[in-house]
């Protein structure tokens, strides 16, 4: 893969400072500071329950943070609904369990948000949708329903659906962990392609191959904190913290 193709600008895409979050009295995220440049591809890993999902869900306000500041693309996330709408239409998200809408066809899944949120004419929305479906290599499934597709295909539809909103940032929450091994590859291929086109990405994943191939930075979280972050090569070959070492030995030993 051509590393050169992926360029990082100096613009800031996401800026998180001193962010804290509690569930009840449980302190899930502690003093998170994170700056993501436009075009950066960040992989987040860490043991289960360390707050990875919560962190990226805070970025498009699926969860509310209680202290600190999150600025996405220049818009600060507060209780202001307008800001939240703005951020959400700039940020795409792909879930572990795809969460496609089972009562709509693939095409309708992809055009729903553009039509109702972006107010794009239907025809145009459908063209865009077909474009992205072609990109994820399943244009011929456009008129089927999600239930008729395999898991890998569904996840690719989920990616296409996000892309149809033309987001500037994409969030992935363990996009491949609910898939059978043979399907993981098709989804990762799609994500790699996306990365090569310069999309800003935050990706929670344990696919270390993927991290090494495309990430600019790997972030290791534990107990709600960012414990270590580094370039993938350094991170994998020369982890600094004890915890990181332990974690890596576990997942790579697998």
């Amino acid at each position, binding site marked *: 893969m051509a590393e050169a193709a992926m360029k990082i600008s100096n613009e800031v895409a996401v800026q998180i400072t001193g962010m804290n979050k509690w569930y009840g009295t449980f302190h899930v995220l502690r003093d998170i500071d994170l700056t993501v440049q436009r075009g950066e591809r960040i992989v987040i890993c860490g043991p289960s329950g360390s707050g990875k999902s919560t962190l990226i869900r805070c970025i498009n306000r699926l969860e509310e943070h209680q202290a600190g500041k999150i600025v996405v693309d220049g818009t600060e996330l507060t209780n202001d609904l307008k800001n939240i709408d703005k951020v959400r239409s700039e940020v795409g998200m792909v879930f572990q369990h795809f969460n496609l809408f089972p009562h709509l066809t693939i095409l309708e899944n992809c055009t729903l948000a553009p039509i109702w949120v972006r107010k794009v004419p239907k025809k145009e929305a459908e063209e865009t949708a077909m474009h992205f479906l072609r990109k994820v290599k399943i244009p011929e499934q456009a008129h089927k329903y999600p239930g008729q597709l395999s898991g890998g295909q569904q996840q690719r539809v989920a990616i296409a659906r996000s892309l149809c909103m033309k987001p500037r940032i994409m969030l992935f929450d363990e996009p491949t962990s609910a898939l059978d091994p043979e399907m993981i590859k098709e989804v990762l291929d799609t994500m790699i392609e996306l990365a090569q086109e310069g999309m800003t990405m935050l990706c929670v994943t344990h696919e270390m191959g993927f991290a090494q191939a495309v990430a600019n930075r790997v972030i290791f979280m534990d107990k709600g904190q960012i*414990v270590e*972050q580094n*370039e993938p090569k*350094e991170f994998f070959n020369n982890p600094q913290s004890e915890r990181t070492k332990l974690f890596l030995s576990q997942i790579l030993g697998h």
Partner: protein
Amino acid sequence: MTAYVRKQMLEPSPPPASQQGVIGWMRENLFSGWVNSILTLAAIYVLYEFLSLGLPWLWHGVWVADSHLQCLEIIAERFGPDASGACWAVIRERWGQYLFGFYPTEEWWRPILCFGLMLVALVAPLFADDSKNAQWIIAPTSALTLVLLGGAGAPLLVMGIAVAVFVLAAWASDRPVKLLVLTGVYPFVAVWLLWGGPLSGPVLAVGGFVILWAVVKLFSGRLGVPLSAGIGIVAAFLWWTVIEPRLTASLPHDLLALAPVESENFGGFLLAFIIGVSSIGMALPLGILLALGRRSDLFIVNKLSVGFIEFVRGVPLITMLFTASLLLQYFLPPQVQFETILRVIILVTFFSAAYIAEVIRGGLAGLPKGQQEAADALGLDYWQAQRLIILPQALKISIPGIVNVFIGLFKDTTLVSFVSLMDPLRGVTAIVRADIDWKAAYWEPYLFVAAIFFVACFGMSRYALYLEARLKTDHR
């Protein structure tokens, strides 16, 4: 881009003050946002209104009085002339009728023992593989039953037998399946206990079933199950109609006899339980057959089952009850006469069979097709496959549904008052109010009956929920 390594792990800190303690809880759960705040205030207002209406009335309740008028006098005397209050004295005076109808007071221990035994007999099918809960049911049931038996003045011999049965049950509860024998003989014991008469009655009745079983066992290999079951039923019928009456006549009448109790003395919750439990019990086999019939690809069998189920489900229970009490006699030979309660049980059995069939059909549909195929491939025939493979699994899935059918049915037993049986809601209440002393007691009986229904039904529905949850996690 900078590499970063955290030097010092942060300890969890408490959330901001606004999220903590009672205040935080209230902010979170009661006053988050103005919609919620309004809802909370509205709810508090509604609660206040209800309590301010009901509480004083309950608080002013009088438990000891000879008549409703006296109740009113006592309340006026204690709480002032304008105070209103409940006259629970009517319940205190008449609770026996609400529970047992006119069942003779000195024989109350019989229904009590019956009920205790029922719970123990149910343990085997309901907790077949859950010995811990089985023990949990058996221990308090035994204790409570024994206490009640003592309270009702049961003869010492009976107490002894009861203790023996419960000890046996407790001993067997490590593997509740062992208690299935008890489940099998329970119906006959219950009939004997409730209606009385010589012990030979139920024993001889069992004979018919033994014959049926023996015939099926003997002939099913050669003739197939349906045919041999048919022959068995004919044989059993002959036994019941021809041989049993002669045997009964020739046996001494007072052999281990309990004082007979007439059906029309049954009333109150005793009646509700008898109708509910026996209908469900008898509806189960019928429901299984109907469910199998509905899934069968034999055209006529299928249509007959569907027709029956849809007919029963399409007609209100009350019309069925009217049919039972008013019209059934038209369809029987003039010399055949049996009691209303029995007829109601039969019709309610048909009624619940249709609903149970639907529940079991759901259970059958929930089984993977592979189970039937595997049974076929192993060479099991249709009835063996159903009995050994399909039904045990389908029934297990269906138990929560069956419990729910039972709850519905139990509530519906109140309708039997419209065919002149003494149900707890209207039947007993009408009798109580026919007494000049209690003519004006409107609320108390209803509330009392409502409370008992609530406790019983709520308990059972929780049990159904618990089963459902257990089935869900029961991947094993």
